[in-house]
């Protein structure tokens, strides 16, 4: 191995460690709040609890501030603009309803994006919602296991997205992640810190580092052939690099997702956190 090769491998390893460490902060904050989510909470109140946790972790910059979605809102069935509909609302969580928490802080310049799906306590153990939600989580776990081999072998990101959508529909669930802005299954976490990652926070929701990084990525893709920043149906290249992957599925009035970091680098394809909502091993 040449000196240059060793130093570039070292830089790459340091970058992956930076993302893993940011992801750990996001996971710990969300998992510390998730057990306290209870019927009667509003989305807004829980987002404030999440923000308090992130303030303790000294988070000042964001790809997006925390989101919380309750019940039917976990399916994004709304009409109109995702960005405004997805904002934390005064919707109250009811017993036996599904919920999703999702936050993407920037920690020491490195972005993270973690999401957790749960069910509000109070439903009986034999409740149909409990078993339906368990089925959603089982399918998510199966997709997470399969994605390692699918991503390593996919001819293009578009083909990978089709494969995931077919698996979800084949299991009898609805594909929800195509309702995100840019219809993304995943977005890149490469190229940070960059010129806009310390941009000040503006209100709630998507933040300037997210908007400017991905807008720049799209422009550079079309002008200079840079790697496409998303995995969606139109992605022309094979997956390469670090992605925040967020398959999101639904059935009936329930929706569930996970969001984890997948590394696709040459011969190596692996999750930084192999379990569903599990520890980040780096």
């Amino acid at each position, binding site marked *: 191995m040449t000196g240059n090769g060793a130093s570039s491998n070292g830089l790459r390893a340091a970058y992956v460690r930076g993302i893993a460490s940011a992801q750990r902060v996001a996971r710990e904050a969300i998992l510390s709040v998730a057990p306290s989510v209870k019927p009667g909470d509003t989305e807004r109140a829980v987002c404030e609890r999440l923000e308090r946790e992130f303030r303790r972790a000294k988070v000042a910059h964001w790809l997006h501030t925390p989101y919380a979605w309750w019940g039917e809102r976990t399916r994004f069935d709304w009409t109109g*603009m*995702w*960005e*405004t509909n997805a*904002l934390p609302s005064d919707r109250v969580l009811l017993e036996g309803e599904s919920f999703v928490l999702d936050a993407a802080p920037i920690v020491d310049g490195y972005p993270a994006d973690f999401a957790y799906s749960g069910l509000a306590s109070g439903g009986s153990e034999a409740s149909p919602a409990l078993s339906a939600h368990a089925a959603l989580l089982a399918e998510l776990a199966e997709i997470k296991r399969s994605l390692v081999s699918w991503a390593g072998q996919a*001819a*293009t990101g578009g083909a990978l997205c089709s494969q995931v959508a077919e698996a979800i529909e084949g299991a009898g669930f609805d594909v929800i992640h195509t309702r995100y*802005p*840019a219809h993304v299954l995943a977005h890149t976490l490469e190229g940070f810190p960059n010129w806009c990652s310390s941009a000040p926070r*503006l*209100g*709630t*929701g*998507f933040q300037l580092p997210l*908007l400017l990084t*991905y*807008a720049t990525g*799209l*422009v550079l*893709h*079309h002008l200079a*052939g840079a790697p*496409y920043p998303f995995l969606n149906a*139109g*992605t*022309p*290249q094979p997956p390469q690099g670090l992605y925040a992957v967020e398959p999101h599925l639904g059935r009936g009035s329930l929706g569930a997702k996970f969001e984890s970091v997948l590394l696709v680098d040459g011969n190596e394809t692996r999750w930084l956190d192999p379990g569903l909502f599990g520890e980040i091993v780096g």
Partner: protein
Amino acid sequence: MTHEDGAVAPITRRSRAPFLGDLRILLLGIWGFVRQCLLTCGRTGERRKGRHDLG
């Protein structure tokens, strides 16, 4: 794909994502961000003020 004379057409792979689709993503993204800021910047300011007032 096979032509009538039996010749196999070369597989062509796009090197770019569909331009119009991405232009739409870009414009909707900027518009969504502006709408979201208009809705929440005031609210965040009010909340901060409230917290400060409470001491």
